[in-house]
């Protein structure tokens, strides 16, 4: 599976993504500049973390209008898998590929730490390599990661099984104490209704090597590669 890792001015997790993916069996990865317009030859798209356009206006608001995003929309519409990590998740929400929005953390602080994530379901292209209910240990690093959606949208997300990851404690309990940013219903990652677009605030690419303290991020990429 060949991954396209998008690069916007201000992306800063693009190299981590290419590094992590290139080390995985059955996967290769290459950079795609935001001004490019083609995703030909790629099997999956990664929108990496960082601060595209300096987070000016709103996180992801300007990146959404980059030329490559038109191709990403077409790619997603044709069923291709797209994963947005951190700033990538914000860009997916801004572009309307995922519902809701990410706003300033409840505590106003930038939060950078390992968190527990409960896999809510594994019948997805992004979590099928992890058992349902498994707790993944993956770091977050964001100032605007508080997931917001109105009540109707939230109801739809639950009804359609779109919530794949929730922040939890070490026992897997989804509690207020385990919520690092005030996200509604402890939401850490959601997929589109069509199932092929996934956005999450945690950084799986930073948890793919024992040297970094966890290899739980592999489960996300293995799920995609195994499809």
């Amino acid at each position, binding site marked *: 599976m060949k991954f396209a890792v998008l690069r916007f001015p201000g992306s800063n997790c693009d190299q981590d993504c290419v590094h992590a993916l290139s080390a995985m069996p059955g996967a290769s990865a290459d950079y795609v500049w935001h001004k490019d317009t083609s995703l030909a030859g790629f099997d999956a798209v990664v929108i990496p973390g960082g601060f595209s356009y300096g987070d000016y206006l*709103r996180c992801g608001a300007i990146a959404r209008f980059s030329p490559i995003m038109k191709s990403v929309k077409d790619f997603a519409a044709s069923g291709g898998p797209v994963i947005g990590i951190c700033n990538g998740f914000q860009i997916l929400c801004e572009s309307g590929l995922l519902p809701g929005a990410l706003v300033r953390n409840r505590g106003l602080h930038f939060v950078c730490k390992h968190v527990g994530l409960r896999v809510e379901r594994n019948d997805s292209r992004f979590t099928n390599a992890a058992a349902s209910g498994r707790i993944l240990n993956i770091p977050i690093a964001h100032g605007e990661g508080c997931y917001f959606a109105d009540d109707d949208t939230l109801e739809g997300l639950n009804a359609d099984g779109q919530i794949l990851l929730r922040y939890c404690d070490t026992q897997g309990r989804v509690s207020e104490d385990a919520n690092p940013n005030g996200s509604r219903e402890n939401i850490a990652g959601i997929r589109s209704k069509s199932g092929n677009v996934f956005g999450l605030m945690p950084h799986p690419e930073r948890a793919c090597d024992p040297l970094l303290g966890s290899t739980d991020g592999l489960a996300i990429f293995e799920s995609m590669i195994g499809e």
Partner: protein
Amino acid sequence: MKALVTVMPKPSVLDPQGAAAAQAIRHHGLEKIGRVRIGKVIEIELPEAADEKLLHEIARDLLSNPVIEDYCLKVLP
């Protein structure tokens, strides 16, 4: 001419900045206040009269995010 676009968080959206500012305002002695909300104002210089419909589109689609924010557009001479 100038266009002034005011963008405010929707009432249903958590505004921790506003809550922190409210606390600071109370510490300054103005204790009887309600909710404080923090938004932003975007000023666009217009050398000539601009299509107001286009300005609304820009305010709605780029300068604000309708999921979390409301905007108000004013064109000044």
